[in-house]
């Protein structure tokens, strides 16, 4: 409470001026911190008996999903509804996109419907950026190709901040399919901007070349990644897709990289275990770890709503 007052007194009030949220690469540390601060206030709203505030009454949000998604879409839908916005869901399987409409045409049609915010998920990296340039509506990236998944990284950082306080100087290891993960990229952009030491850990073929340029350490040794870490973010191995090319056997992956209670015993006592979901139990981590006391996986889901409320609120009220 006092902290904010000093900001008011010194007139250093952070403001949000961006129409869109396309990725954490494009945000300053101050902007990330403003989102996280705003999310904290919205988390309080989600604990009320009436979990709804009139902030975005009269605004319309469309969820435009070119890739299947349950948790992210539901989370955005709930966030918008708790802000009193109206929500429309467009899944591409059942729309004219199947008939060959381009992304920009779809965007312009949506805009013609007087939609205020477009939440978009697309399998092509950079698709939200193209859409954002084509329309006046706000665009929020809900995951694009291998590029970014900013709200997932923001909710990861929010959860970390709740547990650890200031993140400056903390050590976070990201373990799993680094190469194909947009969650990982967004986390790296965000965490390094907040002064976190990030280590990425994966089998060699799943570490993209040149990732050190993003300011992270790399290793293929799980013990190195766990040693001294305050938190680990365990990514999903997509054996149905890309990951399989680099590491064919689930059992072998679990033996080499799976997070087990035995491995956790050698870590910092209160190490935080995160996972963006959905979990492959017995592949990325054991059930005991997923359900254990170090796991904050379900808190991440809860926090996701507060973070997305903050993002929708900020882009909708941005001083452009």
């Amino acid at each position, binding site marked *: 409470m006092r902290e*904010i007052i000093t900001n008011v*007194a010194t007139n250093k009030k952070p403001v*949000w001026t961006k129409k869109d949220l396309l990725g954490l690469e494009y945000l300053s540390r101050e902007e990330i911190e403003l989102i996280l601060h705003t999310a904290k206030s919205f988390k*309080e709203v989600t604990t009320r008996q*009436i979990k*709804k505030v*009139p*902030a975005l009454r009269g605004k319309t949000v469309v969820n435009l999903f070119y890739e299947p998604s349950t948790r992210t879409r539901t989370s955005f839908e709930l966030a918008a509804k708790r802000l009193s916005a109206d929500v429309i869901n467009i899944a591409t399987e059942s729309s004219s996109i199947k008939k060959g409409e381009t992304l920009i045409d779809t965007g312009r049609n949506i805009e013609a419907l007087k939609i205020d915010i477009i939440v978009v998920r697309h399998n092509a990296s950079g698709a939200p950026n193209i859409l954002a340039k084509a329309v006046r509506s706000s665009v929020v990236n809900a995951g694009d190709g291998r590029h970014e998944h900013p709200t997932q990284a923001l909710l990861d950082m929010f959860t970390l901040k709740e547990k650890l306080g200031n993140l400056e100087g903390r050590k976070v290891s990201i373990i799993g399919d680094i190469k194909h993960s947009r969650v990982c990229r967004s986390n790296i952009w965000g965490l390094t901007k907040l002064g976190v030491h990030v280590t990425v850990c994966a089998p060699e073929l799943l570490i993209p070349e040149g990732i050190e340029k993003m300011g992270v350490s790399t290793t293929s040794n799980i013990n190195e990644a766990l040693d001294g870490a305050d938190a680990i973010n365990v990514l999903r191995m997509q054996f149905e897709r890309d990951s399989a090319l680099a590491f064919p056997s689930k059992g072998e992956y679990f033996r080499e990289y799976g997070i087990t209670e035995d491995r956790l015993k050698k870590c910092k006592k209160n190490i935080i275990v995160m996972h963006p979901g959905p979990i492959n139990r017995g592949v990325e981590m054991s059930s005991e770890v997923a359900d254990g006391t170090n796991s904050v996986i379900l808190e991440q889901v809860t926090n996701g709503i507060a973070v997305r409320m903050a993002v929708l609120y900020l882009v909708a009220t941005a001083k452009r």
Partner: protein
Amino acid sequence: MKEKAKILDKETIQKAVQRMAHEILERNKDKKNLVIIGIKYRGAFLAERLVKAIEKIEKTKLLIGALDITLYRDDLTEVAEQPIVHATEIGFDISGKTIILADDVLYTGRTIRCALDALIDFGRPAKIQLAVLVDRGHRELPIRADYVGKNLPTAQAEVVEVRLEESDGKDEVVICEK
């Protein structure tokens, strides 16, 4: 902004709070259900002071809360500056309670309208009464205060600044000219 006149100082603010505390107790015999909720930020500090004053007079403990009304504003997308959202801190059930809603300045009445909407989303209080340190007039809604520290006729071009030690380092109320 140029300061035109000092309306209240540390001593007169303290006296006003003291008098409001007495008036609140006089009007509300059932102290068991009396709670004070301040509107962030300066209203929350006024609430703290009212609670202290009441507890000193009556030797009873009062529940206190702080309300952030940003999300209920009717001008969210129009205001020149984007307001920062803060958390509301009400750690009790307000149903059946008599709420003293506290704020620093009563002006158009729109903030109070937001606060009433926000409070009612938390439950169904028995009564809500309004306490303000300064009532400067120029209401745009049919809202009035039950307890007023200082009635202050102003011109709309003037700005009333309430400064409290907790947020501004000193206690005073001044009129400024834009």
